[in-house]
């Protein structure tokens, strides 16, 4: 079966067996990617299955809004990501995390800023070379995990920005926010991330053990 815009629209119109075929084929051909992405963000395969399957149901509840000119798989992927962000947001509401406790007076943020000021992309300490250090990797992973635990939605969107090159319009569509609210979200991503990466910035800036 070809997963084309035309067959998607046809399935949406006809329903029944055609939708069932689409559900089976999308799960077989793209499910692994969707489940892996959701599991990486949710840290649970079971939760990932729930999110991806809820998204698949939403796809067919909203299928009439799909535009023929689009790629149905890209559209489905966007709904999966949107549902995943909803789930992450829900987790934050149910179990809110605090900012790093020792940053109550903003000292950690100031340290991070000072370290960022000292970062270099020239000379011997290139990012690629310094990042090869095992210690740097360990510290970075810990920092990112803590950031993702406190701000799962921001961390996940930031990861997609880096890995998939999302632009403002794509983030707007994912978050279903206005352009202004999206710009604020982007600023918040940067602001919220900084204190969590203070230890890592300090490590890779000149004077840090990895630089």
């Amino acid at each position, binding site marked *: 079966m070809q997963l084309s815009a035309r067959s998607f629209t046809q399935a949406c119109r006809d*329903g*029944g*067996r055609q*939708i*069932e075929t689409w*559900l*089976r084929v999308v*799960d*077989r051909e793209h*499910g692994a990617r969707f*489940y*892996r992405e959701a*599991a*990486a963000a949710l840290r649970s*395969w079971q939760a*990932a*299955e729930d999110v991806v*399957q809820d998204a*698949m*149901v939403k796809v*067919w*509840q*909203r*299928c*009439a*809004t799909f535009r023929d000119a689009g790629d149905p798989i890209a559209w489905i992927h966007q709904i999966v990501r949107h549902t995943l962000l909803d789930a992450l947001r829900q987790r934050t509401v149910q179990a809110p995390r605090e900012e790093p406790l020792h940053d109550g007076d903003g000292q950690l943020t100031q340290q991070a800023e000072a370290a*960022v*000021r000292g*970062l*270099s*992309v020239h000379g011997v300490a290139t*990012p690629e070379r310094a*990042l090869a250090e095992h210690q*740097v*990797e360990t510290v970075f*992973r810990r920092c*990112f995990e803590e950031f*993702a635990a406190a701000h799962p939605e921001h961390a996940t969107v*930031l*990861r997609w*920005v*880096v*890995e998939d*090159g*999302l*632009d*403002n319009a794509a983030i707007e569509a994912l978050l*279903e926010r206005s352009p202004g609210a999206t*710009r604020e979200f*982007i*600023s918040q*991503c*940067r*602001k919220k*991330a*900084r204190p969590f*990466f203070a230890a*890592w*910035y300090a490590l*890779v800036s000149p004077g840090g053990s990895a630089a």
Partner: protein
Amino acid sequence: MTQDPDDDQHWLDLMAGRAAPEADARTRREAAWLRAAMLSYRAAAPPGAPADADERVGRLLTKAREAGVLVSATNDAANDPALPRRPITWWRPALAACVAICGIVLVFQPAKDGLDDGSTLRGAPVQRIQAQDAAQRRQQLLQDLRAAGFDAKPFERLGRLGIDISLPVPLPAEQGAALKRLGLVPPAGPSLQIEFVVTPEPTRP
């Protein structure tokens, strides 16, 4: 470090791998290091794997049936071409005719209630509302729909404002009634799209 909104935009562009020639040196360094690290140390999925494909798909189809996206297995048997079909009963065409007549009456009746600003409405699946101030009219209807419990989302396409509404299938009677109260025709499918058409202001004599 985040004083300037443009600076944050440059940071985002650099994080996404796009050029930002106007970004200052500090922002470039910050983004270069963070991006390099995020690409080098991608977060992996937790240990384990997705459930077995057959079990997983079985659960997916069950969810789809429960949500009304797929008809239940027993109902679906009636549509299976391999099974002998029951003769079409007399009431089905009659019901279809009634629905069509109701739809025509609703579409062409004068605007009331939610459409009291001179709007007009035409048939599903895309229902169009004419309004002098499309943005205001959309906002008002969006609020009304959300207040009535609908999953309504605004959109703008080719310069035209609209609202997408996701609906359960079959549509519960109270939701159908709520749509009618707002001057909309309840659709048969799982979604309803409304587009707002701007009408010119009447010229003054």
